């Protein structure tokens, strides 16, 4: 299948899904296999957040903050879910009329048009809503790594809700909902821009605005439970099969290839990090391995539906090297306290992957093929525009939002609470009583 037909069918599918609620009638039935796979993918992607990401992040903080991390992931999941149902799905995926380039409309607020029979392509629309919801859940949850161990719970919730409205729903619409980046023909299969760049850049802004943790960088702040982090990492890896494989919105060869390249990039990213540590320190750490894995996964995300196996290796390798290097630079040179390295891993990974997708999609590199009449240079330009636009929008949006949140509730806990830990001071609980 040429790239053109694929993109066309994707656009048709999108178009279809936008009008489906109105036009669908009971005589057309969902494909049970596709539906089974997207429901499974939905479970897998939610599993990435609960408990995957929660454990991945939770293990990395000090013991007195572990529950705060779990709780933030959990509460964000709840808030994002309701927000998605009430307004988000409509803003992201419905027709925005004259503003459609920028944002969807209000016609599907409260999922007004989603019935048992409405379809979205070959799957029930309810399933499409749920699948996309899990992306809206994990994206703000990724950001909390930046301000871990020092942000007030109320501020986290306010910021996350506002961020979804201001950053996520619009960017999601631009890329997947028929907005201006979709019009330009941007390639973002499963969320290089929508998920990883938005989260990574916002994390960097948040880290800078909220300031360093007390004691950083003089005192090491070793992870309190790396077994928890590695457990979460395993869940993220498996869950990513749903993230990227589910983004095919069907159980077919596209989904299969997406999973295959996803897996290859993850393995390559992890081995890259292992090798770098081995060369530099004479030892390879488990945390390094799983960090490289996430870098590999984040980077392949936008490209996963378009590229071949060799490209996946190249992407995983590039991601491993760059994310390692930028993590070093951030933490040890310029001392930015993006506590759990959200920007260096997700932000950088998302940028790398989105750009490389524009290259490796070419059949010359084993990809699916460029759109009719598109050149590699042309596609790369589109990708670059998407990257830059997403960076600016996320950065500025997060900056303004954090200013507002700080005015409303004071975003940072006081010093004594930071010392005592967020678990006790924000949630009146203790992680372990062993």
């Amino acid at each position: 299948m040429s790239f053109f037909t694929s993109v066309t069918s994707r656009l048709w599918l999108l178009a279809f899904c936008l009008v489906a609620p109105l036009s669908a009638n009971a005589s057309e039935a969902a494909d049970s296999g596709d539906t089974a796979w997207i429901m499974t993918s939905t479970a897998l992607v939610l599993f990435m957040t609960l408990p995957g990401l929660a454990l991945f992040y939770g293990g990395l903080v000090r013991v007195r903050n572990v529950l705060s991390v779990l709780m933030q992931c959990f509460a964000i999941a709840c808030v994002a879910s309701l927000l998605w149902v009430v307004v988000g799905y409509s803003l992201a995926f419905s027709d925005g009329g004259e503003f459609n380039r920028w944002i969807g409309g209000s016609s599907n607020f409260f999922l007004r048009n989603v019935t048992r029979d409405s379809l979205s392509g070959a799957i029930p629309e309810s399933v499409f809503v749920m699948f996309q919801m899990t992306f809206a859940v994990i994206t703000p949850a990724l950001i909390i790594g930046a301000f871990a161990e020092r942000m007030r719970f109320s501020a986290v919730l306010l910021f996350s809700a506002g961020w979804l409205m201001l950053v996520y729903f619009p960017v999601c619409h631009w890329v997947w909902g028929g907005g201006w980046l979709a019009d330009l023909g941007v390639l973002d299969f499963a969320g290089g821009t929508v998920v990883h760049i938005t989260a990574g850049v916002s994390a960097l802004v948040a880290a800078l605005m909220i300031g360093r943790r007390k004691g950083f960088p003089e005192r090491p702040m070793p992870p309190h439970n790396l077994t928890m982090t590695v457990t979460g990492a395993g869940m993220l890896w498996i869950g990513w099969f749903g993230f990227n494989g589910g983004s095919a919105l069907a159980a077919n060869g596209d989904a299969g290839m997406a999973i295959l390249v996803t897996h290859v990039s993850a393995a390559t990213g992890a081995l890259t990090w292992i090798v770098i540590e081995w060369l530099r320190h004479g030892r390879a750490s488990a945390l390094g391995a799983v960090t490289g894995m996430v870098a590999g996964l984040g980077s392949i995300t936008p490209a996963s539906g378009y590229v071949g196996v060799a490209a996946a290796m190249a992407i995983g390798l590039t991601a491993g090297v760059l994310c390692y290097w930028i993590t070093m630079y951030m933490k040890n040179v310029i001392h930015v306290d993006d506590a759990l390295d959200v920007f260096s891993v997700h932000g950088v990974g998302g940028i790398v992957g989105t750009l490389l997708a524009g290259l490796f999609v070419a059949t010359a590199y084993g990809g699916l093929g460029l759109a009719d009449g598109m050149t590699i240079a042309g596609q790369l330009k589109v990708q670059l525009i998407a990257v830059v636009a997403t960076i600016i929008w996320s950065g500025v949006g997060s900056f303004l939002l954090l200013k507002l949140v700080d005015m409303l509730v004071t975003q940072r806990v006081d010093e004594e609470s930071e010392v005592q830990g967020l678990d006790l001071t924000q949630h009146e609980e203790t992680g372990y009583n062993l």
Partner: protein
Amino acid sequence: MKLVSAVIKPFKLDEVREGLNNIGIHGMTVTEVKGFGRQRGHTEIYRGAEYVVDFLPKIKIEVGVAEDRVDDVVDAIRNAADSGKIGDGKIFVSSLEQVVRIRTGETGTEAL
């Protein structure tokens, strides 16, 4: 009576306990502690950065003994805990004024 307190390397615990058993000492209390001293800590890697952890896991053993057993006990501990390497630890001896066995109310060396 004396209280002999020794800070030793964790993997020497079994040998020390056996050493004490061999000289007829069967009671002791053990605590997990962290030691700082001349022994250098180890490095750990954290996302590529290396840092030094300078507190080391140690075991503290406390044994209450009658005055006349102190030297035996100190020797037994030394012999068992000595690996010839820095960080093998230290033995502290201090005076105990009274010991009471809770169950029986026995006091003094009876209670040990």
